[in-house]
């Protein structure tokens, strides 16, 4: 592993200089959209009627599915907030040379972002210049417009379910988890054994367009901690994830969970994406709290509900409630 040689501040300053050189109509560094979980680093209007959002990533660790899908979430959010015609560019500034295993993550990001490049410090300024130059000429990926539109409609439908009173306990910062996810899952397994009317499948797989978009074989599916299936053929399947969350340090996990819920709502067939309907019903069982910033404590709860998660507390009685609700 190589040491990080350039700080984030230096990276951003370098990009700012590159952008400024191009004499755009308007440039905003560090913009602020109230509903985004992660803000773009720059908004650029090269000319009236054309908007570019640039995200710069300087991760401290190697890429993983979690960090990759958290990055994909930024794309979903900016497209939903500003429209599908916003050209969204990403520049990943890696401290380490990109390994063969990581290339699949980059394939997904390349296929989703309108413009995406990696700078692993081998060709430092080339990637930066390429992104800045390319983003002013490129067009948004029209084949994904349908996804952004469908997702906007889905989110609008889901967000109606949000009600502060219903989720007040989830934003109580005093709710801290003193246990681990593994211990919680063991508790859940014990509960499930006392529920003979339900078929529980651990590591329940759900297909999504992620594999097709990343060029992956189909066996790479999303896995949920449990799938709960009623024996009746008409019963719905609920998929359950357990998460230990806290006010601080959970943002990447939440962004990952957001993308997971978005992707499992779609399927990919005949080279096109389509909405799956209500087939998969994801439940997030939370230990701890999911409080947002003090001026907007419900931000994360609202975000999770908007993408389709049903929120419950991670204790056995809540699991029983999920089982007997409408499965």
């Amino acid at each position: 592993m190589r040491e990080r040689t350039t700080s984030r501040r230096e990276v951003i300053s370098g990009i700012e200089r590159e952008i400024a050189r191009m004499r755009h109509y308007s440039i905003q560094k560090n913009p602020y959209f109230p509903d985004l979980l992660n803000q773009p680093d720059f908004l650029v209007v090269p000319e009236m009627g054309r908007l570019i959002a640039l995200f710069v990533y300087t991760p401290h660790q190697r890429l993983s599915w979690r960090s990759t899908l958290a990055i994909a979430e930024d794309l979903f959010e900016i497209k939903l907030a500003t429209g599908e015609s916003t050209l969204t560019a990403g520049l990943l500034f890696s401290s380490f040379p990109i390994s063969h295993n990581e290339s699949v993550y980059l394939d997904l990001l390349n296929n989703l972002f309108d413009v995406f490049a990696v700078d692993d410090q081998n060709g430092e300024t080339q990637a930066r210049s390429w992104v800045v130059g390319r983003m002013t000429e490129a067009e948004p990926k029209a084949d994904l417009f349908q996804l952004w539109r469908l997702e906007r409609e889905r989110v609008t439908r889901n967000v109606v379910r949000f009600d502060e009173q219903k989720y007040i306990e989830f934003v109580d910062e005093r709710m801290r988890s003193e246990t681990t996810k593994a211990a919680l899952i063991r508790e859940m397994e014990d509960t499930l054994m006392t529920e003979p009317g339900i078929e529980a499948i651990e590591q329940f797989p759900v297909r999504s367009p992620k594999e097709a978009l990343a060029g992956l074989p189909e066996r790479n599916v999303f896995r949920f901690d449990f799938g709960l299936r009623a024996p009746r053929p008409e019963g719905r399947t609920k998929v359950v994830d357990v998460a230990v969350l806290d006010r601080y340090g959970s943002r990447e996990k939440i962004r990952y969970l957001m993308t997971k819920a978005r992707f499992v709502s779609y399927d990919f067939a005949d080279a096109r994406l389509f909405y799956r309907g209500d087939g998969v019903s994801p439940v997030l069982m939370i230990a701890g709290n999911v409080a947002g910033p003090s001026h907007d404590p419900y931000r994360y709860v609202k975000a999770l509900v908007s993408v389709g998660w049903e929120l419950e507390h991670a204790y056995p009685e809540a699991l029983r409630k999920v089982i007997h609700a409408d499965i």
Partner: protein
Amino acid sequence: MQTFKKEIETILTHLAGSKWATHGGVQEVLKEYGHLEGAARTPTQTRRVSLQIFHASRAIDSFLAHLATHESKKPGKPAPPAYFTLGSSLSYIKTNSIGGSRFSPTTELDIQAITKDRNKYLHVANVFPADVEIRRFLIRTTTALREAAIFPP
């Protein structure tokens, strides 16, 4: 307030980059938002909040009226009323959509609340909102404007 200043700058950039930006009427909305940005620097609280309500209302009012007027000129669309108010623009958009898009139910409620609050503060003598109220009012206007900016022309 620093965050809000940044939010207003972001809306200005977003609007300037939207497909509506090249329309003449929207240029005026952009300028109105520039005035709203400047109003935040007014030192006296009552004057500041009055100016903020004035500029924020005019911006959303004019923008929605522009969208509705633009839509009404498309073939097959019903004729617009003699003039658009905030309420009649919302009603027109709700019925006819703008390029097939409509406001989300929560934003519709926000626009109704904007109309009510604006009337209260602009028509009743010596009534001024507290900072919390003006913040809520401005958040509602910016939410509505952001959503409207992504309607297809």
